[in-house]
């Protein structure tokens, strides 16, 4: 299927959904409105709400806060994950000792940590960053750990035979291998950074997209809730697109599934 056709079909799905939503929430079917506006609002109101946010400019502050929290969570979580992942992979004893605790902490649903972080770090951005960090850290950590451990035996031996010192093996073999694993999970970890920020905001804050949605819910403003959700989705898609660009740049050396072999 050609790209324009595909795109046209994708747009068609959205148009059909929105039209159905608009019709079912305004035109009675057999004397009954199937999507009562109180619970489902309607596309027109949602759209006007989004326009209002952008026209008045209030949305930028919230977007900015959520973006800042996500970036901080991603950077701090990734740094920690890379360092600890490397450390564990190179020191099997340390990894063995901490193994049950790592599993325990990772098994914990992070939402329950939100109130504790709010208590420790206040209602500002840092409690949200902390929540995002606990999510990002483990993804990056597991991937880097795997990346360092799964370096091909032959490639490693080759490095040694070419005369690499331990430090050079780090630089030319372990590090690129770990990074490639980390980048392969980039979409997931960036996504989780955003999830951490928004969930944190939702559970208690004074700014951000999560706060916006929570406020609208508080006054049964369904149009506001939907508007917040749409802005959040667009925000995540934009970030994801950025990640794809970065990934393409950094992983050129990797065969992709569509590559012919040989």
């Amino acid at each position, binding site marked *: 299927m050609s790209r324009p056709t595909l795109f046209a079909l994708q747009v068609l799905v959205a148009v059909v959904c929105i039209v159905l939503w608009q019709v079912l929430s305004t035109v009675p079917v057999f004397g009954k409105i199937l999507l009562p506006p109180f619970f489902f609002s309607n596309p027109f109101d949602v759209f006007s709400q989004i326009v209002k946010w952008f026209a008045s400019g209030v949305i930028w502050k919230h977007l900015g806060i959520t973006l800042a929290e996500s970036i901080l969570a991603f950077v701090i979580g990734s740094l920690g994950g890379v360092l600890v992942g490397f450390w564990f992979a190179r020191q099997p004893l340390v990894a063995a000792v901490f193994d049950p605790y790592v599993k325990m902490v990772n098994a914990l649903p992070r939402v329950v940590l939100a109130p504790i972080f709010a208590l420790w770090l206040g209602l500002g951005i840092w409690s949200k960053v902390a929540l995002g960090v606990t999510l990002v850290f483990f993804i990056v950590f597991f991937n880097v750990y795997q990346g360092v451990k799964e370096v*091909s035996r*032959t*490639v490693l*031996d*080759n*490095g*040694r*035979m*070419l*005369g*690499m010192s331990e430090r*050079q093996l780090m630089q*030319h*073999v372990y590090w*690129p*291998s770990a990074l*490639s694993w980390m980048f392969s999970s980039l979409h997931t970890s960036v996504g989780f950074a955003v999830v951490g920020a928004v969930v944190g905001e939702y559970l208690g804050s004074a700014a951000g997209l999560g706060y916006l949605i929570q406020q609208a819910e508080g006054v049964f403003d369904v149009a506001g809730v939907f508007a917040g959700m749409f802005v959040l989705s667009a925000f995540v898609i934009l970030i994801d697109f950025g990640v794809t660009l970065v990934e393409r740049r950094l992983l*050129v*050396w*990797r*065969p992709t599934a569509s*590559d012919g*072999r*040989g």
Partner: protein
Amino acid sequence: MPTAVALEDAKVAFRLGDGRVYTAVEKAHLAVAQGEFVAIVGPTGCGKSTLLNVAAGLLKPAAGNVKIFDRPLAGLNRDAGYLFQADALFPWKTALDNVAIGLEIKGTPRAEALPRAQKWLTSVGLGAFAGRYPHMLSGGQRKRVALAQVLIRDPKILLMDEPFGPLDAQTRQVMGNLLLDLWNADRKAVLFVTHDLEEAIALADRVVIMSAGPSSRIIGDWRVSLPRPRDIFEVRLDKEFHALHREIWSVLKDEVMKGYAQSTQAAEAV
């Protein structure tokens, strides 16, 4: 001629997961003189790669000695370049960087290493592929890059483990001639492992035969006195080549059968 590599009654054993000990090589006695091209031939699983690993210092023999230029080998063999059986290029480096790394490790500045790497790529016929990553190269091209990667460091000893193994017959012959040309330039000591007897005779000064494993040994050692420089295509038509091939094959054939029988028995036992 000084001896480049000497294995003196080397024995290699592996500890298996269940605690048993598997003796791969019982006793290997082998000397490679400086400038000599020695080929090791034997059935699969007889311990050819294992012997090379011992010569490289990647594996310690359970008994016996390894001497490199008459000095006992401790740790890795720093005089040797190793062309591995499996793909060993760094997948995240371009062909050019893969070759240049051998010099950069030694502290050669990058600006100096890159043009030299380019020259080596050209001499293995890949001058136009410098910017490709390994996954964008064919199997034969990857082996050439690997050869350049090893040769750029100018090792005194070259260890090669079935370097042309996975390649098709034509490519093997082209690669064989390329190797002979490069080797002719400075005649390094070469220990070349292959399962292809014809290839061994065409390339080497001496052909060494190993028995089927486990506890394999070196069971034969033939001198190949075909004149050099040789051309792989033409040397195969030589009368002496055929006589030697028949003679060595009569010994090797039994071992190949034994090796095959053992490998199927082992499979049935599991």
